[in-house]
């Protein structure tokens, strides 16, 4: 039973990891997994083409092609492709990849199957950063939202990491989780308080809080892209170390790993990835939770594969979600954060039920 074996494979401690069947071992052999990455790249390309080809306006494939390779700045259709759909697809791809990789790292690092960047208070910190800036400074531009979101996410993650590092043993997964939950609750209270007491702030940030990739142009993306790309590179470089530490900290230490460094660099990668993502697109939920689990079904527990697969599938997932968000209520649009929640919510319930049964 492949599902059963894969499900058991989700148990990330070495002592309880099942012995994969022969078929599974073949399916997860290096050549097959490498080929799978190529399939993932193909899926991403299809997603991006879909994002560029489909939207509220019906534009013929010929015009789509011409907009890319023979751009006419006086053509409305060409402008729709160039100024709206292409940037949107690029933002969704980078943000989706970043959130999925950040989620995978968090699940590996904390050995918590329900882990995602929210555990470090990233989304909460970003939301408080934006709400506070709107309330105190009356800011009203997406680039300034991004700045304060990133600052809020970073400061919060550092605070969580600092709190989780107190006491003996350094930043253990349990302490990080508890510190994150506590700080998330505290900061959420501040945010809620401001939003309740100040209706104007609530109205201004309501749509940002829903999460969206609409209206984000390449300029904004280029401002944040260095953080996201840097985070992705760092994460991919840490794949082997995260696989080891996911076996358990004692085992990792026994194998000679300097776990403090690995945890610190992993946390840095998460801050770069999730902080940058929330800065560009607002808090988009469920990708960091859902995608790593789906990937583990496919590739097992080796983070050298989980991370690149998460990046590719996360990117494709967010792009397809955005296409659906555009088409479902055409000519209106849903925020993509709503769409990912619609898809991710049922999966979350399934995950919880599966864990309970197990």
């Amino acid at each position, binding site marked *: 039973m492949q599902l059963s074996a894969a499900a058991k494979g989700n148990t990330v401690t070495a002592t309880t990891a099942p012995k994969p069947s022969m078929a599974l071992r073949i399916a997860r052999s290096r050549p097959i997994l490498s080929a799978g990455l190529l399939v993932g790249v193909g899926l991403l390309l299809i997603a991006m083409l879909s994002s560029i080809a489909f939207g*509220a306006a019906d534009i013929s494939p010929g015009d789509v092609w011409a907009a890319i390779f023979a751009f006419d700045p006086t053509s*409305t259709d060409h402008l*729709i492709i160039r100024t709206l759909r292409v940037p949107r697809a690029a933002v969704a791809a980078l943000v989706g990849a970043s959130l999925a990789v950040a989620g995978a790292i968090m699940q590996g690092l904390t050995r918590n199957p329900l882990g995602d960047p929210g555990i470090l208070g990233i989304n909460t910190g970003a939301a408080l950063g934006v709400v506070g800036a709107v309330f105190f400074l009356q800011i*009203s531009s997406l680039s300034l939202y991004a700045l304060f979101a990133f600052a809020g996410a970073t400061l919060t993650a550092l605070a969580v990491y600092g709190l989780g590092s107190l006491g003996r043993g350094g930043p253990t997964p349990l302490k990080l989780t508890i510190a994150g939950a506590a700080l998330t609750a505290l900061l959420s209270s501040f945010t809620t308080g401001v939003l309740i007491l*100040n*209706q*104007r702030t609530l*109205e201004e940030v309501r749509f940002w809080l829903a999460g969206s990739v609409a*209206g984000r142009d390449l300029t904004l993306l280029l401002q944040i892209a260095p953080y996201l790309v840097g985070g992705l590179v760092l994460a991919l470089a840490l794949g082997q170390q995260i696989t080891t530490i996911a076996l358990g900290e004692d085992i990792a230490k026994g194998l000679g790993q300097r776990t403090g460094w690995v945890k610190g660099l992993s946390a840095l990668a998460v801050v770069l990835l999730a902080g940058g993502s929330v800065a560009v697109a607002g808090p988009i939920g469920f990708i960091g939770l859902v995608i790593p689990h789906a990937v583990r079904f496919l590739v097992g527990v080796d983070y050298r594969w989980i991370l690149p697969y998460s990046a590719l599938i996360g990117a494709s997932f967010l792009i397809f979600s955005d296409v659906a968000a555009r088409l479902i209520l055409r000519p*209106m649009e849903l925020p993509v954060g709503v769409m990912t929640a619609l898809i991710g919510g049922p999966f979350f319930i399934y995950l919880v039920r599966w864990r309970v049964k197990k």
Partner: protein
Amino acid sequence: MKSLPNPLALPLLACLFLLLTACVSPVTPPVTPSASSSTTVAAPATTDNAAAAFPITVTHDRGEITFEKPAERIIVFSEEFIELFIALDLAPVGVAAWRNEPTGETFTVLPYLEQVIPGAPIYLAGNEPNLEAIAALQPDLILHHDYADDTDLYDSLAQIAPTMAYSGATVGGWKRAIRGLAQATGRSDRAEAVIADYDTRLAALQADMAPMVEIAPEVTVLLSGIDFIGVFDERFAIGSLMQTLGFTLTTPIGDAMDPSGYTAISVEALRDIDSDTVMVLRFDSEQEHISDPILASLGMPILRTAIRPGMGYTGPYAEFIYLEGFAAAFHEQFPAP
């Protein structure tokens, strides 16, 4: 009761009407309040014709109220209805207005008009004001803007004091409210003067715009933000104002419009605009909006008018700010020969 926009529409509009800081120049209100609009006015409401026939029964959107004597301690909801107090030179004791929030305890100035509100009323927060604070002011009348069709809130307010509710969401809807308020405070003569002044100015503006209507009878009215676009039809106050000038409103989405008269649409849908002109309402003039390149490619006149932050949709002052903004944009696009 007038139905509201869909759940996304009003928050969006509210968000937009509040977004910016000082990016538009102040404009003198078209209806000049009386000279007694001063921060030093602290007395409760007084009547023009105190000897008017009381008791009087006033009809409002949710029923009738009989006043034995002129109301003096009045609490008012919304910027739209605060305008009525400025127009009548009437001093409320409390204000619940969610688009503008004062820095102190009192709400002394309506920012988008830069007009002092008589009586330096206490600020009572926004959509969900503190009922205890309202009760503590011991009002003898609450003028409630019923835009949310919130029966629970109305019932709560009505338990505190006689509460008159008006939707006020449609153009000219404030006329019913100002007449009711004037009846309850013995200022009907002044209310009729305000209405007459409004009608006279509107007639003049309609005459002024008649040549433009001949040139470009069909117009699409949009609300533009940094990352979104919405469209109005004549069912929403702002669209209705354009219709009042004589124009016919068209939308790029036809039957898909929300019954409220405002719909947030995909920017891509702008491609389907089919009208003589496009009127774009926006809060700022400097930042590029996501819709700007698409609109520029449509090959039709794109007219722009700035919106003042915190402004309501209707009212004797707000409506003329919109109307004169529309007129100025048309004159700029189609200058007289």
